[in-house]
């Protein structure tokens, strides 16, 4: 049979598309897409379980800068969070990555300050981190579900799946997310690496994960562990007997930007607490 060039190209094009399409569909049945389920997999034997993990912070128990620094360092060292610094020692605001850090009151709760408030109140330090919202805008916008809600309430980050589009960073109303603009290993010294946790690579977003991997091993989050006594509480807020539930029910706590309807799970006690 004779055919002209256009017909040949059309047939070749359609065959290629069908060929690739068929391969894609058949590979969709491959083990790659099968998820493991119990009883083939189990939670860790000491794993901490909750319906909804939440955190309560009592800033009045952080007495010194050192107290706050211990909490930040505990988190960042545990998770190999890189430390980008300018030559003069200040944080490099371009590349910096932070999972938990300190902000003054007027920045952590913008709009809540007033003109007559004393400077010492505006500068009162607050420890801020991802709020693991109930209704997180970041999860709503992620095109690959690289950030998603775990059944225990944690807003989790899957650094393997993240394509680095940074839509979640635009969506987060709290500025909790950081992006790896360059290779983070450049600032990590091998002797400070936590060998039990990976680093990240350039091009992915990262943030606090409420120490999901520690919870799986029966440990509370690193920041809570390193905080002064009574400064940070962590527990299942849906468990009526948990400390976080008791505090939130009986004491005045505030959350960041509550009017946005995100439902943060990090509560800040107003007025200090008696809980030790």
């Amino acid at each position, binding site marked *: 049979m004779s055919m002209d060039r256009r017909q040949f190209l059309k047939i070749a094009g359609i065959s290629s598309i069908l060929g690739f399409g068929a391969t894609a569909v058949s590979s969709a049945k491959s083990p790659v897409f099968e998820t493991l389920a119990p009883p083939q997999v189990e939670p860790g034997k000491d794993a901490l379980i909750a319906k909804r993990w939440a955190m309560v912070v009592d800033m009045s128990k952080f007495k010194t800068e050192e107290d706050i620094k211990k909490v930040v360092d505990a988190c960042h060292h545990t998770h190999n969070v890189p430390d980008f610094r300018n030559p003069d020692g200040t944080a490099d605001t371009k590349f910096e990555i932070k999972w938990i850090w300190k902000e003054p009151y007027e920045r952590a709760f913008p709009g809540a300050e007033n003109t007559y408030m004393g400077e010492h109140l505006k500068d009162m330090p607050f420890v801020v981190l991802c709020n693991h919202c109930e209704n997180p805008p970041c999860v709503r916008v992620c095109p*690959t579900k690289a950030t998603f809600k775990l059944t225990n309430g944690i807003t989790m980050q899957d650094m393997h799946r993240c394509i680095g589009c*940074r839509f979640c*960073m635009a969506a987060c109303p709290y500025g909790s997310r950081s992006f790896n603009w360059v290779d983070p290993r450049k600032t990590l010294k091998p002797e400070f690496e936590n060998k039990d946790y990976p680093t990240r690579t350039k091009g992915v977003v990262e943030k606090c994960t409420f120490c999901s991997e520690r919870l799986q091993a029966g440990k509370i989050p690193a920041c809570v562990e390193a905080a002064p006594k009574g400064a940070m509480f962590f527990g299942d807020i849906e468990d009526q007997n948990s400390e976080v539930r008791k505090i939130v029910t009986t004491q005045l706590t505030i959350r960041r930007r509550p009017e946005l309807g995100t439902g943060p799970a990090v509560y800040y006690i107003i007025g200090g607490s008696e809980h030790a």
Partner: protein
Amino acid sequence: MLEKAFEGGKSYWAWIFFLCALIVVGFYYYLQQFSIGLGLTGMHRDVSWGLYIGQFTFLVGVAASAVMLVIPYYLHDFKKFGKIVILGEFLAISAVLMCMLFIMADMGQPMRFMNILLHPTPNSVMFWDFLVLAGYLVINALVGWVTLGADKKGSPPPKWIKFFIILSIPWAVSIHTVTAFLYAGLPGRHFWLSAIMAARFLASAFAGGPALLIILSLIVRKVSKFDPGKEPIQAVGRIVGYAMFANVFFLALEFFTAFYSGIPGHASGFKYLYVGLEGHSELVPLMWTSSIFAAVSLLMLIFPAIRKKEGLLALACVMLFISLWIDKGFGLIIGGFVPNPFEEVHTYWPTMPESVITVGVWAIGFLVLSMLYKIAISVREQTAGIEIEH
């Protein structure tokens, strides 16, 4: 018909060669960015989208603007647009291609882009954006090719193409609405949290895209024997005028809500862009240039005495295009991120590699556009004098 893109005189090949050179340089810097990371750009933790996403946003508008020719011609039988609808469709192809390239350039892990398809997420606007852009590319390529091929043969196109032509109309509206939804649904960004975001996007698209088309048509007339015609160009000019009026009006509406309500969060983005905030006023000259160009070009388009002179019309279109490019391709993005959620001002300015990569992508777009236009022009030159029936 494809072979017509490879037949040309010295000036055509010089232009193609120039674009290829820009592409090669842009690609070199992209390889650097791929190896070093997006830190090579001016983006940072607080302004996490910059020039690339701005260009993508602007070009989706240009792509959608093809519909401003399709609606009059196919829905309202406005025969004057018969010869130039193809120019709009080919511009759409080139623009959508650039959009996709800018998104790829902006991704932190571009090798993982298949994750969008492997793990479809209907609640994510970006997932839908990807789908509608891909669909729009296919529709315009199909419609453009089939109708032009039919014109070349001198016969009407097959009847089934009408379905895709009509489909392209709501599809064009959808691509830009979906792109607006990327911004308009984010609770933390008050500068973008506006119901008329999609309407603003469409208005600026329907002004900017056809304005570019007018400029391109005038260039086509200069470099070839194909004359799009004085009347069609004037008709497009009227459309640009109305759309630009809507665009400027909508921007004024935004200003009103922002400043009359007195809510700091709503106004601070505008303040940063137009008068500066906390001592930072890097973008102020740029934004005022955009506003002045917008006002002047709108006036030039409104008065027929000015609009009818093609030289002045071209000038108005150039100013309009630049104005919208600044506003949508740059100011809109930065204004949403500054100030940040902590009410701090961290500014953004693109770096040299970032700009070169941007120019490289535009060069790819213009390369595709030039080759497609060459084909369209060749067909028109061949069939000049033959009535085109669709």
